């Protein structure tokens, strides 16, 4: 019972995640495709915000992809880059060309669940595909808000609930058929409908969440799983199954994946739903909602129509 409660409080094994990311460093350049793709979409958003962000944080920097792509965007002068894995932080540091595009970069190892930053220090917090393994997302979002200056911006990409739905479906069915029951194989991701509410709960103003789907194709389910391993993104659920997967179950999962999803060119698609969140640390100068009933013009006039009473018949 106590164990179950513990599991629901902290679904992810962060120490295991750290080891997975530490190990992913060796092969990182061959497996950072998804992170690079998401990072590119993220930094492009900076062009849409007409602001300068001299002091910025990249939370969960992986191999420093965002830092390398900024190229003067957003007027960032200093970029602090953190990763849960000290080895990833070291990889980021090795790739830093200090002073390029007038950008000073500093790598740190830091845990997204316990941020080492004082209040109101950053003009911008960026995060690319690093918050889906956080146990207490509302707590992390609140910490992010605290380290932002008033009117500072939080801009992040997350993996959404439709991510890897093909793989999830294939595993659930294979385990059910072969072993008479399914175990959690694919992480539960944040649903787009919950994301905005989470930001609001953490005290952010003007939250906006949008969704983008990226489909990557693989030769086989085993290539897909090797890629996830290479990214350091395999299962770190605490209640994951600890016994080795039976060969028959794996083969069945591969068969189901192929039957249901194979495209005419013989490849297997894998869906990654990328949610982009934009939110602002509150500031009195921001646009505020009007008090209900305070409108100065009635709706009928605005719509160039006549207000009519509704009668029931």
């Amino acid at each position, binding site marked *: 019972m106590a164990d179950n409660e513990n599991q629901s409080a902290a679904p992810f094994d962060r120490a295991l995640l750290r080891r997975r990311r530490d190990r992913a460093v060796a092969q990182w350049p061959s497996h950072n495709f998804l992170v690079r793709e998401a990072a590119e979409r993220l930094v492009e958003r900076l062009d849409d915000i007409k602001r300068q962000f001299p002091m910025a944080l990249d939370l969960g920097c992986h191999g420093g992809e965002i830092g390398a792509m900024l190229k003067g965007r957003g007027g960032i002068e200093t970029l602090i880059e953190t990763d849960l894995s000290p080895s990833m932080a070291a990889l980021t540091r090795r790739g830093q060309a200090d002073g390029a595009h007038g950008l000073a970069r500093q790598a740190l190892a830091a845990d997204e669940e316990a941020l080492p*930053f004082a209040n109101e220090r950053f003009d911008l917090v960026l995060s690319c595909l690093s918050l889906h393994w956080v146990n207490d997302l509302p707590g992390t979002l609140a910490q992010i808000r605290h380290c932002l200056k008033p009117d500072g911006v939080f801009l992040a990409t997350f993996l959404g609930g439709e991510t890897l739905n093909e793989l999830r479906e294939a595993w659930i069915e294979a385990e059910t058929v072969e072993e008479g029951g399914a175990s959690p194989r694919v992480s539960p991701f944040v649903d787009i409908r919950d994301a905005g509410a989470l930001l609001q709960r953490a005290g952010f103003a003007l939250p906006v969440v949008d969704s983008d789907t990226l489909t990557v194709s693989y030769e086989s389910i085993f290539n897909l799983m090797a890629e996830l391993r290479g990214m350091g993104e395999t299962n770190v659920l605490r209640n994951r199954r600890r016994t080795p997967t039976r060969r028959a179950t794996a083969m069945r999962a591969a068969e189901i994946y192929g039957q249901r999803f194979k495209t005419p060119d013989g490849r297997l698609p894998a869906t990654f739903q990328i949610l982009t969140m934009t939110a602002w640390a509150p500031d009195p100068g921001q646009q505020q909602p009007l008090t209900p009933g305070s409108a100065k013009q009635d709706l009928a006039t605005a719509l160039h129509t006549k207000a009519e009473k509704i009668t029931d018949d």
Partner: protein
Amino acid sequence: MTEHGASVDPKLLEILVCPLTKGPLRYDPQAGELISDQAKLAYPIRDGIPIMLVDEARALDGDQPAKS
């Protein structure tokens, strides 16, 4: 900004706090560590990278770190 933990950019010290207590840190140049007096923890700086992880910090005074 730093080399081999030999120095820490003062700008970095202005933004960093102890991740456990959110209290201030002071830099110990001899040991190349960031000290949290409140948590009685010393965070190492390895190859210029401050390791701000409670699990990696050294407990001071032989006391156990004030783990939550």
